[in-house]
């Protein structure tokens, strides 16, 4: 390689900038030129982009005349990333004099630009997984990838553990299939990933063929990270529960002033709006120098914020996960995380947003929003020190995404079922797909479902004269294109000033509760609601000082099991005072209250608190296994208790434990406790307990949207949907009653089982509990541990009573 024209050109270009390549970059180029696919694993800030990208460039330079047409498809999970990477790539191409066009294609790309791309495709295409599928849904798309050399999945760790990762797998399988029919099997596929627990698996998902030449290139570089907690002066200043921690906000101000630019990460969009307002309230001088950035803010505004971050115009930006990934803002030298990041990987990723250049130290502050989060801070520091990083489990056998994909192909150039079956059997996601399952999926999109159940007049995918399966109805095609993707959100409406100018988006559900004259906050501005016109929320500036902020119904991340284990350990350390963590010193008074009112669980103990008050009879248990496991565990324990006596529970949980609440006394003693937390008959009992809850139904909401059963509209676009309104719940009922063999229904239960339940984790937890000491206490009042669960409102029901009996009793209470 060293002797090639292209390599020398790159090296001399780097030299003029007084730079030279890292070893992992050189290794990647070498492997790429030798025809390998693979995975690049390097910390942020060391030029991951330049690994595979320059490999492709070197190969082009080595040819007499660089090839034209799409050469490199670069998949990025976030829209904001694409722009940045495009800029960096264009600079390189210009400096080297390679006449290639870099094009960006995603939800923000203008129609005009898309048309231009249709005429002449750029050589390098930066695209989101969804837009790539949209491209496959276009007529003539199969000829676009004739000359394609390489597909890169950037931030692959981020895509891997989601249905979007499956979108990537499917698109790659298709492009490989197309090239194969053209006699070309040279396509190389590369993932670029931060460190995760299952890096080998990450490679095997992006390059699934066992026979392929594939390699993991690891950068032997370490990013230095400095972690500091922002501590309250007294523990009373922090709420026991709740999600704000605004009382510590004043401690942020000196940090902001001391730094060049600060990125402040908050977990939800709603809270980010509140924090933005609050920071301005306590420090009016920051007006015009701080901004807010999240996924519901209009494209233009986001653009401006990102530009201003580059130029150093802003002192601070409040962001959600919309700025999580590899965007490189040079002036950012400090990062603040508000509230628990829920996982070690996410925390380190965010830390990496500061001190982005190689060998610089990343600095991150952690600001707790309630007292117990201080323990989490100590746990995260320890986990980060020990490089205890989570795995990302790839999704498999998700029929909703498969159905969507097949219709996507049918809307585009059509597909041959035999060939496509072979292609998808190659993917990691569907390698276990059985012929009868494939037959069901084909039936679902062509005739509606199993032949046993009649589906008259069903029209969707039909066989064309050329033998390919296609969508013939323009309406169905249009509807399908509008909802390609696997991120399901409520219908969103654009928000616009009466005088013109878009501000962002809010959920339809939120707007439906507003009256004309009501005020709300978006993008840091206080807006007065005027009316809804043509699916747009019309507003004017409000004169009010305070207003409600919309709640976006985003998913809340569960605590990772890695973090949970360290957390349990830290709980033990608080009272014994043998620790090194300043965070633990601060929370000690709280643990004293816990000890007084109840008990602080040791790592070989499970604490159960029985509390009886006006609301009813509560059972709290604290396994520290994360929200999702607690949801299942709660249902399981509720089910087993309900076998003892007829009783109905509502279940609430957080990352530390769960609560069962009933209107009659809950039977509990040592014997019962070990029995209800037993790993015996686990699978069977879980099936019975989750059948009776709403979990599968909740999962089905996303599945129905992805599989195209429920049309959820599209931000800002109004399309007539005549007489087709329905809900996922309705479909769930119909399939449950009349079509038990429906694979989408099965998927809903499996998602509950495997993703939510994480059966191995649950079984391990129950085994741990069996071998531990179960401590039952009867506190008179809520305890520091129980209170946060109390204020959590996510609830499910579980009952063994006859419905009528239940209603009668509820009636007596409500109407007495």
């Amino acid at each position, binding site marked *: 390689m060293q002797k090639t024209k292209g390599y020398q050109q790159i090296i001399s270009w780097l030299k003029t900038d007084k730079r030279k390549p890292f070893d992992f970059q050189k290794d990647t180029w070498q492997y790429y030129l030798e025809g390998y696919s693979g995975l690049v694993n390097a910390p942020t800030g060391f030029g991951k982009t330049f690994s595979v990208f320059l490999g492709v460039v070197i190969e082009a330079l080595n040819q007499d005349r660089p090839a034209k047409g799409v050469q490199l498809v670069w998949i990025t999970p976030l829209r904001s990333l694409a722009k940045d990477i495009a800029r960096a790539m264009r600079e390189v191409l210009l400096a080297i004099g390679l006449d290639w066009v870099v094009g960006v294609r995603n939800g923000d790309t203008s129609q005009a630009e898309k048309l231009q791309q249709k005429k002449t495709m750029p050589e390098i295409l930066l695209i989101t997984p969804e837009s790539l599928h949209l491209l496959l849904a276009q007529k003539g798309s199969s000829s676009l990838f004739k000359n394609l050399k390489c597909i890169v999945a950037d931030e692959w760790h981020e895509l891997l553990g989601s249905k979007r990762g499956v979108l990537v797998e499917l698109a790659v399988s298709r492009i490989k299939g197309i090239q194969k029919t053209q006699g070309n099997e040279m396509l190389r596929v590369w993932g670029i990933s931060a460190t995760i627990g299952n890096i080998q698996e990450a490679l095997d998902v992006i390059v699934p063929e066992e026979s392929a030449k594939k390699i993991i290139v690891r950068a032997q570089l370490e990013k230095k990270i400095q972690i500091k907690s922002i501590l309250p002066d007294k523990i009373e200043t922090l709420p026991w529960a709740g999600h704000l921690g605004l009382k510590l906000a004043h401690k942020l101000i000196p940090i902001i002033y001391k730094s060049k630019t600060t990125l402040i990460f908050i977990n939800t969009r709603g809270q980010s709006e509140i924090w933005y307002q609050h920071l301005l309230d306590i420090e009016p001088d920051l007006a015009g120098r701080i901004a807010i950035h999240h996924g519901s803010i209009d494209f233009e505004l986001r653009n401006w914020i990102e530009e201003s971050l580059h130029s150093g115009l802003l002192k601070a930006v409040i962001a959600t996960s919309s700025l999580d990934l590899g965007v490189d803002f040079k002036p950012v030298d400090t990062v603040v995380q508000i509230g628990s990041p829920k996982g070690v990987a996410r925390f380190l990723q965010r830390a990496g947003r500061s001190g982005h250049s190689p060998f610089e130290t990343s600095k991150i502050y952690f600001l707790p929003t309630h007292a117990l989060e201080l323990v989490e801070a100590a746990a995260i520091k320890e986990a980060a020190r020990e490089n205890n990083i989570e795995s990302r489990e790839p999704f498999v056998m998700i029929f909703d995404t498969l159905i969507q994909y097949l219709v996507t192909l049918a809307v585009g150039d059509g597909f041959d079922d035999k060939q496509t079956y072979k292609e998808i059997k190659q993917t990691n996601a569907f390698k276990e797909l059985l012929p009868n399952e494939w037959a069901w999926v084909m039936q679902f999109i062509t005739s509606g479902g199993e032949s046993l159940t009649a589906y008259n007049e069903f029209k969707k995918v039909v066989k064309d004269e050329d033998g390919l399966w296609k969508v013939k109805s323009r309406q169905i095609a249009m509807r399908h294109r509008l909802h390609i993707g696997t991120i399901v959100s409520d219908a969103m409406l654009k928000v616009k000033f009466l005088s013109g100018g878009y501000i962002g988006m809010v959920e339809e559900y939120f707007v439906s509760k507003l009256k004309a004259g009501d005020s709300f906050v978006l993008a840091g501005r206080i807006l007065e609601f005027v009316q809804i016109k043509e699916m747009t929320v019309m507003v004017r500036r409000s004169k009010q000082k305070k207003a409600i902020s919309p709640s976006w119904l985003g998913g809340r991340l569960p605590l990772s099991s890695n973090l949970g284990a360290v957390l349990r350990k830290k709980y033990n350390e608080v009272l014994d005072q043998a620790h090194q963590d300043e965070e633990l010193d601060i929370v000690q008074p709280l643990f004293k209250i816990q000890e007084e009112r109840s008990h602080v669980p040791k790592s070989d103990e499970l604490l159960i608190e029985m509390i009886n008050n006006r609301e009813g009879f509560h059972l709290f248990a604290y396994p520290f296994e994360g929200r999702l496991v607690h949801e299942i565990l709660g249902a399981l324990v509720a089910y087993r208790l309900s076998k003892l006596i007829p009783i109905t529970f509502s279940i609430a949980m957080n990352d530390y434990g769960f609560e069962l609440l009933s209107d009659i006394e809950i039977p509990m003693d040592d014997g019962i406790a070990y029995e209800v937390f037993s790993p015996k008959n686990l699978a069977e009992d879980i099936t019975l307990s989750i059948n009776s809850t709403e979990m599968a139904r909740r999962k089905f909401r996303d599945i129905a949207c992805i599989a195209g059963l429920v049309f959820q509209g599209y931000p800002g676009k109004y399309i007539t949907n005549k007489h087709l309104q329905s809900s996922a719940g309705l479909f769930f009922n119909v399939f449950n009653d009349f079509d038990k063999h429906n694979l989408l229904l099965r998927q809903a239960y499996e998602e509950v089982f495997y993703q939510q339940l994480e059966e191995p984790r649950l079984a391990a937890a129950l085994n741990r509990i069996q071998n531990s000491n179960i401590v039952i206490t009867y506190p008179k009042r809520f305890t520091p541990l129980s209170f946060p669960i109390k204020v959590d409102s996510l609830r499910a029901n579980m009952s063994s009573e006859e419905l*009528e009996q239940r209603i009668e009793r509820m009636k007596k209470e409500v109407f007495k």
Partner: protein
Amino acid sequence: MKISVREEEIILDKERAIYLPKEQLLAISDLHLGKAAHFRKAGLAVPNIVSKNDLDRLSELLEKYLPKQLLINGDMFHSDYNTEIDEFAKWKENFNEINFILVKGNHDQQAEEVYKNLAVEVYEPNYQTDQFCFIHDVAHCRSNLYAISGHIHPGISIYNKAKQRLKFPCFYFGEDHAVLPAFSNFTGLQLVKAKETDMVFAITPTKIVKV
């Protein structure tokens, strides 16, 4: 369950229908026939059995009460003409002795011939008995009689102190009007807010409960 409104007896049936013994009239609302087929035509897989199940339930009701008249209080057919209307025609032959009355709703957009061929008497905007005015959407009612409407697919949520919640379709009887539940199972629910003086009857899988 029997109740009395304006001194006339009304029987509430858990199959989402009411029967007026005095008039020998069985009334349902929001049948939405053809909805499943309409969905199928648009590429959404809803099995036929959904509509068949609705018609089976209606058969049972007709055999139970043996009414002279069956009144459909609007939204009999969901959308454009499709095979489910043919299936309905065939089904209806079993009940030729019963007089079918349709009070037109917002979904009832079929050509006049369709109703004529099916021998369904069409009333617009309402159908009146001595005591009651049947109308699809109560917002359009101009009568002084007690209005019986449909349209909104009413449902009710019941809570208890342990924050448990249950949701059911319901009958609503207010001061000057009533709302019938949607007959079709393939419909959603819109929660109603009831005043102290209103009567609301939740429909559970096995019986009707006054709340």
